[in-house]
């Protein structure tokens, strides 16, 4: 396998990662790369072995295999993209809310999910919120609202209601009193 061809593939992966996108194995069949399946396997093997390309990460989904560069895309971001690609959106929402409640800690603005790479539409958000109420396994996911109407979600595993309410108000309204 020519070194040149491998570099082209790596460059493509890195550039896609900069733009927030994975490369799926089958993307390498298409223009402009146009590799055959056997060749794709060979290329990826070469990439895995080359220390210069140690940033290229493989992730296996249910049906697809993905490639990205962890130099251009952080693991956190990649985790979101992975869930989106795998169409596990409700799972993604819940994971995100729990992660934020635990880590920062803070409640999660529902508007986050309309941003890239989530890109949920309003209907999807509504559906998920319904499902959360219905499904027992998500009973820790609760809603708060700031005085300006903005809605947030938090996980009661990590935040008390008082805390979540106060943080919501702080983020949306109170911090602007002392800009």
């Amino acid at each position, binding site marked *: 396998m020519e070194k040149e061809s491998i570099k082209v593939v790596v460059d493509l992966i890195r550039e896609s*990662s*900069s*733009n*927030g996108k994975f490369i799926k194995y089958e993307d390498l069949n298409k223009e402009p790369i146009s590799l055959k399946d056997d060749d794709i396997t060979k290329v990826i093997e070469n990439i895995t072995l080359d220390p210069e390309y140690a940033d290229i990460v493989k992730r296996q989904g249910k049906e697809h295999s993905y490639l990205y560069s962890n130099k*251009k*895309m*952080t*693991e*956190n*971001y990649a985790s*979101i993209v992975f869930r989106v690609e795998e169409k596990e959106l409700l799972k993604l929402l819940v994971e995100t809310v729990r992660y934020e409640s635990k*880590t*920062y*800690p*803070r409640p999660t*603005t529902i*508007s*986050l999910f309309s*941003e*890239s*790479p*989530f890109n949920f539409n309003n209907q999807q958000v509504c559906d998920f919120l319904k499902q959360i109420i219905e499904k027992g396994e998500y009973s820790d996911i609760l809603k708060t609202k700031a005085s300006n109407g903005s809605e947030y979600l938090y996980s009661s595993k990590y*935040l*008390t209601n*008082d*805390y*979540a*309410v*106060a*943080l919501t108000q*702080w*983020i949306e309204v*109170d*911090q*602007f*009193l*002392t*800009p």
Partner: protein
Amino acid sequence: MAKLGGWTGKILRVNLTTGVFTYEDTSKYKNLVGGMGIGYKIMFDEVKAGTKAFDPANKMIFATGPLTGSGVPCSSRTNITSLLPSNPYNAVSDSHMGGNFAAVMKYAGYDAIIIEGVSKKPVYLNIKDAKVTLEDASFVWGQGIYNSTAQIASRVGKEACIAAIGQAGENMVNLSVIMNGHSHSAGGHGGIMGSKKLKAIAISGTGSVKMAGTGEEWYNLNQYMLKGIIGANNQHVVPSTPQPWAEYNNKGSRWTAKKGLTWGAANEPIETGECNATDQNKIGYRTMKSTFDFGDVAEKYTVRMGGCQSCPIRCHSEMDIPNLEKFGVSRYASNTCMGYFSPFGVMFNGVKDQFEKGDAKMIGGTLGSQLADDYGVWCNYGNIGRDLKYAYESGTLKKVIPAEEYDSIPWDKLMNGDPSFLIDFYKRVALKIGEFSHMGDGSYWLAKRWKFGQEFWDSHDVGLWSPLGFPKHHSSEAGAQVGAILSCMFNRDAQSHTHMNFIGSGLPINVQKSIAKEKWGSETALDAPLNYTPMNEYKAKFAKWSVIRNCLHDSLTLCNWMWPMTTSPLKSRNYRGDTALESKFLSLVTGEKISEVQLDLAGERIFTLHRALTVKQMGTTDMRGKHDLMCAWVFDMDPDKKAFTPGTIKMDRADMVIALTMFYKEMGWDEKTGAPTRATLERLSLKDVADQLDKLKLLP
């Protein structure tokens, strides 16, 4: 003075009474660095205790420091020191203005300009390098800052940088500003220039700031800072939305650039895009502030971002809103943060959307900022609007204002959310029209004159931090006792951002706490937001470090809204910034090697000098009892909650007593009174200050 880089070596003293200019060597202030340090020393040595702000004996010091104009990022800040008329004791304060003025002062050859005496007639100071004259200003006396500046510029040259007062300063309104550029104003001291009949200072400078290091060394240190340490506005180091290059994100972050978000009113909309942490050619896009301040509606009205000389951050929103002309003001407006929010806050009953859905805040802010900035009215960090709300809702206004005057005020506009109310409001305040104009006295004097009840002081809504009449500003809402302590230390709102920048960086709490441990000795120095714990010695260290850096920046001068570089946006740096960067730049520029610790000592010296000056001006060592005070709401808010439980910023009285004691101990001040001791003053090479205080029986 030895040939050091940085300082010009020259201080200009202007006596407005005699019209005489004298020059002094900056070297005697070297261990006070510059800026605030020079200002406080001159006030301490030359202005007698008991002097009032508008007395002829008061002085004003416009000062810069060795890094001003050196091209170090965020280094064009002017520090103005004088007595503060809105303070009950007219005690000393510093105000600051960004823009170009500070840098140009250095290029003209001056480290500081001291203004003393009183002119018989309105004048402006015209400085062209070594040529200094006082010129007649009667042709602009009575005009707003914008027109005055243009008129003066047409005489002295378009490249001159002009700092001016408006009618508010001329009329000695307590709440008045001095402004250079279209939006860079220093609060509280405008009236002093007015009392001295000094309308403006115009400066042109064709000279240089020298540096000991080579151009290449300078370039490399700048690159080091710009390609992975500097973040966005307020040194927020995390973007506000998820971006591929970033591990974290935070909705409250000022790193708001993202795909599809544009400077919409540019000739062709310019996308802010995803600005990764090492791309120095996109730093100026990171902080899209207009939509942050006003909401999405502001995008299409944003011409660009702007700001101060040498700063890549650009935190002022430069707006083009054609509909503003309907109010009789320019369609173009500039400002940021409180510059927009305080006029909007004067409309305490809200503003209705004016021309499209969601534009209320934007129209209120951009209309109001032009009025306030042109008249040169200050706001006491936004409290003027809350003072108005209280005065109105308590029925006080109806009581104290004569009926005819009361009826002439367009209250219906205020109550109906019509922002044209602001046109009337600022005019009355600036021109001292009627009893209502005492709104410009500042909260303390206003409450006294109109006999506000105790509930005014106790009210969380009114938001006054101190019985001295200034509001909260990164106080108990910013790092618990750390913010609370800092807010007690000055004679106005602290203007101290070191701690808040760090707290708001956007990083997760465990990352922040690990940095806190490295800097101040323990993770317990930092509480999670709204989840406070009792006082401990590490919080005292964090508070000390914060205020010392603040004073240092106001002396070097550097922008404390950006510096210090406590964090960085790079995971590869483990999100650590470089807190030695001030000392590295100073060493490079001056040629005298100084360490981070040595420079912090200078900051400690400057801050302690401020304390000594406050003791002197208040005529008491009892700082704890008479100065370091907090209003009741700080402790009594959220009555259904307990302090130190998640979800409240409520503080505890006994705990704050301990907090102040611990802080006094860190500073080497008397633990009972909070006054600087002789031992500490001498340790900080302020023996002459100790001797003076001793003579006045003001040592603890």
